[in-house]
């Protein structure tokens, strides 16, 4: 395929996957820090950005000894998946052993994966608390997709646009965070995962992220072309 098309296609796929990944994360924001909402006690963008950075670190290491786009992107995906897995597990350890709270969803009565009931474990006047299993699995899938998208953008910038590794990392980060912020606006606060009613807002964000990523891809191509990186 033509390098120009490859750059744009990879950036678009990466950006859309980043947005999809953010929608799947269980983000509780400030209320989760008080055990008033389900999910991880931080902002949407910060959590996905932190996970994607972990993935980017491993992907950039793997890109030094592998030329396979799939392997580099999967390495990034697994890096994000480990970051989210450890973070959600340790958050639950603090909830269970540090505050004596049972993780429970506030949006559904029965966990669709483990079929465990949630309602009777939830504190009244709270929107759930902790990271129940369905949110954990949703978060793991989100991290995998988001990390894959971030690493894919990095690979395209490194090998098709011929950016220097540090510059490729910075630009990949920029494109990633733009898409993550659009997703965060769409979510508007907290989300529990794919079972949350807010997840239905996803198509709007995907369309917006498609347009933004297309714009970013064209910009990358222009920069690489003007800088003489594409022969």
């Amino acid at each position, binding site marked *: 395929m033509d390098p120009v098309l490859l750059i744009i296609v990879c950036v678009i796929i990466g950006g859309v996957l980043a947005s999809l990944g953010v929608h799947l994360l269980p983000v509780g924001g400030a209320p989760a820090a008080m055990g008033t909402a389900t999910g991880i006690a931080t902002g949407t963008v*910060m959590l996905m950005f932190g996970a994607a950075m972990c993935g980017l670190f491993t992907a950039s290491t793997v890109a030094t000894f*592998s030329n396979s786009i799939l*392997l580099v992107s999967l390495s990034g995906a697994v890096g994000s*998946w480990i970051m989210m897995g450890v973070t959600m597990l*340790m958050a639950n350890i603090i909830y269970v052993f*540090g505050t004596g709270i049972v993780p429970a969803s506030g949006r559904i009565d029965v966990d669709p994966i483990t079929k465990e009931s949630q309602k*009777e474990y939830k504190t009244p006047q709270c929107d759930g608390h902790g990271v129940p299993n369905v949110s954990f699995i949703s978060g793991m899938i989100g991290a995998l997709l988001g990390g894959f998208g971030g690493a894919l953008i990095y690979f395209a910038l490194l090998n098709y646009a011929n950016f220097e590794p540090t510059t490729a990392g910075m630009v990949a980060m920029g494109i990633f965070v733009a898409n993550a912020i659009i997703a965060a606006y769409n979510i508007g606060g907290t989300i529990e995962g794919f079972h949350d009613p807010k997840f239905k807002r996803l198509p709007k964000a995907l369309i917006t992220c498609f347009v933004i990523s297309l714009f970013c891809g064209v910009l990358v191509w222009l920069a690489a072309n003007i800088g003489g990186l594409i022969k």
Partner: protein
Amino acid sequence: MEPIAMLFAWMLLIVFLALIACMFEDLESDTGSQSNPNSQVQLAPQVGQVHRFFNKAISGEAPAYAMYCTIAGVIAWVLLSKGVHPIMAIPIGTIVGEVVHVIFATTAHLGRTTAQKRFEQPIYLDVLYGHLLPIATHGFMATLCITAIAYIQSNLGTLSGLPELNHPFALPMLAFIWGITVGAIGSSTGDIHYGTEREFQDRPFGEGKRVVYHGKITRYAECGIRTQKDIVGFCVKYGGPCTGLTFGLIILFENWRTLVGMIAGNYLPDLQATAGNMAATIGIVLGLMIGIALTVGNVVIVRWARKRYGPFVGE
């Protein structure tokens, strides 16, 4: 010593530094009351709860630490390029990062508290002066460890005897990456112990904090009126170490699976280009197995909590 043993030794040192960095990052955020639980400190005067808490949520922890660590990384990188020894360059860079941190802490606390004048929240100067040094010292430890990690990773190959294994990213970029990550983790895990437990310690233990409690934070310490120093002493017993362990485990799993993949795929020690794909594949499979183990761990913990604590029995 042979390069593989050296690579593992440096990896373990990085893991140890990561553990220390994230623990101090979380404790610093408790000292200055940054990040999510600060919403309650901000809300308290508005519901009539005048307090002596420090209040400096300049931004989320992740961008804040990305900034401090990148400043430290850039200064250290410039000094290193001028031939300064790393033993000097890394601490000097960190001190510059911490100067910026303290300036932000001061202006943020004064600005935020001044804005609450209409709710009769005073600015206690002893609270301001008394917390700046603990903020700077905790922040120094976190930033120093992250800058040291970035230095080791960007020179890992040279230090281990295989210069080709130096990380492709420049030192400031690595400092930025780990600054973002350490902030995201500190905000995600450690905040729970401060926000859910310590800020609402006079509320029933073992339940989520109801919306009606919001803003009504616990203002009295074991002796006297509570300040952030009492909170750090509490969180250092559980929330801080758990947060450090989170980052330490992430760095351990990430580096371990990559290194083991490189060895099992015969990429190391001869750096055969043809073995690169096999090394990456093994690393990915190992990572997937770790992730599945983490998921099983979560299922076990949730089941245990449901069985041990039972359904909600309060009002």
